[in-house]
């Protein structure tokens, strides 16, 4: 099929299914974020080298600012001894070099890091897509599964740019600085290392732990607030008309103050962590002065190194200042990725795609069908159903009784649990919530048949009663469609291909009466002599059908 990509170039997909190396690794994976990370890393070309480059560049940038301070301290101390100016030239060049290079290294590091993050996101997105494409999604009440996957996938970017690269590069700089300082003063180098571990590891870790506790305390309250607001929005007219609005607002605000209480505890802890980092740097500076000063007094260390030993910790700790923030980002991304990992580890349900091979006899014959999701009890038992050419059969029953499950079974997306289905493979399925892609009208219609010509698309559109130019873009920059138009566009998809059976799933749901009537008129005209199965609970639609099959 072709779908217009956003740049406007048409992307033609081969019918061969593309699957990267990640899908193969699926079965061996646990649910941990580390495993997911490894897998994504392996799917990116030269992934490890790119990561190494980003870390080294980031290390060089931070190292440059630490060195700038250290070398400057040396330069000034040396200058105080009033040597010939020549002796200062090398240090002066070093100071200038570090002053300039930091910006360059930082710029390059950001480019390499973000490029890697985007590559990893692309790999993860493809993985998620491939997984979801293989599991049948129609008629499953999976709530916000899809929108959650979309937002969870982007957590990998934060993990690369804000956690892994800063942490690894800072570790390099801390080790490098400690080794350098140890040559002058072992004692103060060790204190610096210890203070860096406190400020860069211990405090962020404690904040993260506390953050986790706070998050889990806040989750139910947040959830309650979200559902309160959701209800307030959806039933707004009813609440206002029945004089319950003020009561509802105070209920929401009570949850707000509860949330505020929880969040203030977290803010308190964050404040303590930030203060702790400053105290750690203070300890490193004072200890360096004391130990270094004693060494100078005893004559075991050159006096001009004292400034280096005392000033380096200041610059070093500046590098670690963002780490409590990074720890929180880590918590968030880890939660998102492990949730995603769980989703991706679920075994696929059904076949995903409906099979669309032509068969000899149009129509549908269902005998003694038990339909239900694999691994669950059947929701429909012993269903007998025949739809012949030109027939309009209504499948009715209260919501949740399994009408769409029957449709998914008929389309071959999930196996029948018992009984027999004789049907043509090419089913035209019109869903009440058919997705309209943010591309051109023509590409939206081509979902129904990949190789449809322009003329065929125009024909399908006019049969569907939709007067839109095929090259019109839909979505943000383009047209927005009304509910009726969207359903007609979805109908054009059904009309553009050869169909042996039509399944209309709640075709009038959420449409106002007149729109629904007009749509049904056009639907019946377009279906002509095709067999049609209508899933509905709209009495007006049932009245138009030749036969009614009731579930439950």
């Amino acid at each position, binding site marked *: 099929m072709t779908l217009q990509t956003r740049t406007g170039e048409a992307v033609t997909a081969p019918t061969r299914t593309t699957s990267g190396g990640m899908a193969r690794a699926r079965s061996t994976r646990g649910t941990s974020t580390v495993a997911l990370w490894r897998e994504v890393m392996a799917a990116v070309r030269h992934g490890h080298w790119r990561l190494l480059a980003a870390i080294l560049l980031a290390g060089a940038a931070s190292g440059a600012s630490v060195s700038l301070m250290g070398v400057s301290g040396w330069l000034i101390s040396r200058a105080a001894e009033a040597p010939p100016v020549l002796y200062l030239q090398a240090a002066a060049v070093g100071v200038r070099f570090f002053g300039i290079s930091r910006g360059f290294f930082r710029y390059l590091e950001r480019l390499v890091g973000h490029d890697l993050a985007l590559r990893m*996101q692309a790999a993860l997105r493809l993985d998620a*897509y491939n997984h979801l494409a293989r599991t049948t999604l129609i008629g499953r009440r999976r709530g916000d599964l899809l929108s959650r996957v979309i937002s969870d996938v982007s957590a990998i970017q934060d993990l690369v740019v804000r956690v892994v690269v800063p942490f690894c590069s800072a570790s390099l700089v801390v080790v490098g600085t400690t080794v350098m300082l140890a040559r002058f003063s072992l004692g103060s180098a060790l204190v610096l290392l210890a203070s860096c571990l406190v400020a860069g590891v211990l405090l962020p870790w404690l904040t993260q732990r506390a953050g986790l506790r706070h998050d889990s305390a806040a989750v139910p309250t947040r959830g309650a607030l979200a559902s309160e607001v*959701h209800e307030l929005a959806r039933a707004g007219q009813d609440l206002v008309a029945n004089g319950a609005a003020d009561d509802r607002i105070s209920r929401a605000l009570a949850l707000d103050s509860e949330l505020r209480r929880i969040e203030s505890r977290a803010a308190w802890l964050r404040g303590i962590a930030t203060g702790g980092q400053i105290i750690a740097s203070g300890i490193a500076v004072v200890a360096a002065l004391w130990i270094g000063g004693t060494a100078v007094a005893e004559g075991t260390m050159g006096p001009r190194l004292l400034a280096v030993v005392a000033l380096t910790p200041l610059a070093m700790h500046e590098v670690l200042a963002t780490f409590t923030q990074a720890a929180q980002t880590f918590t968030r991304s880890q939660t998102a990725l492990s949730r995603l990992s769980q989703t991706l580890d679920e075994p696929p349900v059904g076949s995903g795609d409906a099979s669309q091979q032509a068969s000899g006899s149009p129509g549908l014959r269902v005998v003694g069908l038990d339909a239900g999701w694999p691994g669950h009890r059947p929701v429909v038992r012993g269903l007998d159903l025949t739809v012949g050419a030109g027939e309009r059969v209504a499948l009715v029953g209260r919501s949740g009784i399994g009408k769409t499950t029957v449709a998914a079974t008929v389309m071959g997306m999930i196996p029948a649990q018992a009984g027999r289905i004789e049907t043509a493979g090419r089913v035209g399925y019109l869903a009440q919530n058919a997705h309209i892609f943010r591309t051109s009208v023509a590409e939206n219609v081509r979902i129904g048949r990949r190789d449809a010509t322009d003329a065929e698309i125009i024909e399908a559109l006019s049969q569907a009663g939709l007067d839109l130019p095929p090259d019109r873009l839909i979505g943000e920059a383009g047209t927005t469609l009304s509910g009726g138009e969207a359903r007609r566009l979805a109908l054009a998809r059904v009309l553009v291909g050869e169909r042996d059976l039509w399944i209309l799933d709640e075709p009038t749901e959420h449409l106002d009466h007149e729109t629904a009537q007009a749509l049904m008129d056009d639907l019946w005209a377009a279906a002509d002599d095709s067999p049609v199965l209508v899933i509905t609970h709209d009495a007006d639609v049932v009245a138009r059908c030749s036969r009614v099959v009731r579930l439950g």
Partner: protein
Amino acid sequence: MPGPIHPRLLRHARATRNYLIAGVAVGVVTSGLMIAQAWLLAHAVVGIFTTRQVAPYLATFGMLAGVFLGRALLAWLNQVLAHRAAAEVKSTLRREVLRARLARPTADQASSATLVHVVTDGLDALDGYFSKYLPQLALAAVVPAVVGAAILWADWESALIIAVTLPLIPVFMSLIGWTTQQAVARRFRVADRLANHFADLIEGLPTLQAFGRARAQARGVELGEEANRRETMRTLSVSFLSAFALELLANLSVAVVAVTVGFRLVGGHVGFETALFVLVLAPEAFLPVRQVGVHFHDSADGVAAADEAFAIIDAGAVAPTRPRLPAPDLASSTLRVREAGYTYPGSAEPALDPVSFEVTPGSIIALRARSGGGKTTLLRLLLGFEAPTTGEVSVDGVAVTDLDRGDWLRQIAFVPQNPGMVVGSIADNVRLGAPDASGDQVVEALTAVAADFDPYRSVGDDGEGLSAGERRRVALARALVRVRHGHARLLVLDEPTAGLDADTEATVISAVAASGAAVVLVSHREAVIALADRVVELAPAVVPGLAATEGVR
């Protein structure tokens, strides 16, 4: 590009202003401590350097430790203050957003998903704005000035270098921003669409599967992601330039200060202690300005979140309130609709052409209209949710919108086309109409509208567990208890029997007719219209295209 301080956020929330003042105060004390820290450090290093003795400087070490402790306290205080301000503003905005949404319950510019997002996660973006961006902004305003003054006092030549470089930072940043703005804006739309390509395909997966196209589209995902990466990197390589300029200038300036001060020290033009003092202090002058740049995205996110909230608040803004009048009793007063019409703001075509009729106590009026005829709009006018743009809707000569809303709505029972449900039981939903109704009274009302469900059956989020027809009947029972056991004298019903079979419809009609209240109803069913004392035809609106004739409820 959003300004540094959201003007409306500042005007709107007193907490923001107080916090900014506190932030500046913290900034002043912090810079004082920075200066003390630099001086103590220089003093100790130079002292030990010249005297080769540690003991005389132990007190200096102690003071230095005290300075760090003070800075730590201030940092903690800043966090706590920031949180308080953020929490205060978030609560205020939450309250106002919800009030605004309910002030005009039919102004549905913001979908429920948007509203939930804004009230929960969306406003949380203000945390970053308050706890990271604003404190840095306050520090950036104060610290360079104070620190700069200290350097000026110690060594004016170094101060000159900093004074020349520091203002270059904003100049360069805006220069780069200005020159790249067009390139960035040009790419923005493309990049935005590319970024959403994946979301679009994922959301459309069930549709792709129905046509057997899902697996094949994986190649489209791959190509789309590749294009997305290229385009994003092209944009980023330009937008990172301003951060690059900032880093370069700040570090270069410190380097130049260090080198010049070093050479002047050799020449004896400056003392060792002063030189070290200037060296330690110089980076501190730049740090807050650099941090503002680092936290700039927090600002953008926070401002965007505030804008979203203000958009909803504005949409719900009602005309300046005059003192609302008590509503006349509908048991004896007549509701008059006189040439009332309505045009939505920004729309060329009226949604409702002028219409006139009267609702006398106990009478039944049926409204009949083609699609797009403005029935729903007319019902909104009757309820007082909107004021007519022409003509008037009044009781005893007083416009409905001038009446005290609670007082007016107490006399009305309303069943919208898609009735809203609250989470709880069916009985809870019926009792929304009359909180004091007894269990028996609830069951009676349900039976009257052929809704013989278990009143204790639970209703989930968004009416889950009830079909559209069941929801409508629960809403009808809700309206009936409001008439029978509340104060309602007027039933306003939008398609009360749509989707119901003929028998159920007959039961519902007789219940409505027997209620004794006046009724205004919209219906296309002949059986329902036959019930009316008067049928009002609404003129169909001019319908040039599909979009105008169809609406999704």
